[in-house]
């Protein structure tokens, strides 16, 4: 499934410069080094972290998108940074587990 198609399933796009990117698998985590060590390229990455390092990790680990769960807010300047660095960021109001369950149905 393409990242932009998440919008049809209740995910709000905060930054979508590369919406045609294919999602391959899902990874969940808030410890950034853990994510860099374990997430695979093209994974959708679910987290509740919203600092600037999240953008860097998503870029370097080459995940297809960041999904902010639990409806957490990302500061406007970080959303701008995400757009500049061509990082897709979406948001779900659902808790992490429910977000993962929903993605599991969509991505598999």
């Amino acid at each position, binding site marked *: 499934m393409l990242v932009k198609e998440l919008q049809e399933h209740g995910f709000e796009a905060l930054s979508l410069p590369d919406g045609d990117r294919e999602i391959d698998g899902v990874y969940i985590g808030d*410890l950034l080094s853990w994510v860099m060590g374990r997430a695979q*390229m093209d994974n959708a990455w679910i987290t509740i972290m919203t600092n600037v*390092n999240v953008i*860097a990790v998503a*870029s*370097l680990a080459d995940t297809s998108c960041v999904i902010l769960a639990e409806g957490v807010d990302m500061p406007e300047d970080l959303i701008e940074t995400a757009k500049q660095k061509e990082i897709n960021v979406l948001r779900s109001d659902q808790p992490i587990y429910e977000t993962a369950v929903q993605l599991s149905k969509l991505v598999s």
Partner: protein
Amino acid sequence: MSEPLIFHFDVDGENFASAGQASTQVKKNLRQLGVPAATIRRVSIAMYEGEINMVIHANGGTADVIVSEDYIEIILADKGPGIPNIEQAMQEGFSTATDQIRSLGFGAGMGLPNMKRYTDTMEIDTMVGVGTTITMYVYL
């Protein structure tokens, strides 16, 4: 590519938010050179972990990346406190980072293990009170 390309960066020790600038630039440079995406990912992550370590522990340092026909060499050098026990520092989960660093999502004790995981060779040259130099190779 006949002559190796050398990229040099100063890593700012004061600015945690800007950590990753050097690795992001290297990622761009390698992409322009046509290096495969999976290799770029390995180099970028290893280098970013090194940058973060220099910001957290060593008040910054320098990063040099040498791209030759057969390999990419990454040299990270700092004048920080040094690593007293490398074996311990290499264990996944061991960290001396502060709570403030942890609140940013770092300090999981995965930095050095990730650098080793994503490179073909990694050598740590460190002396307590003098500094640390880490040299990593990724073969092309």
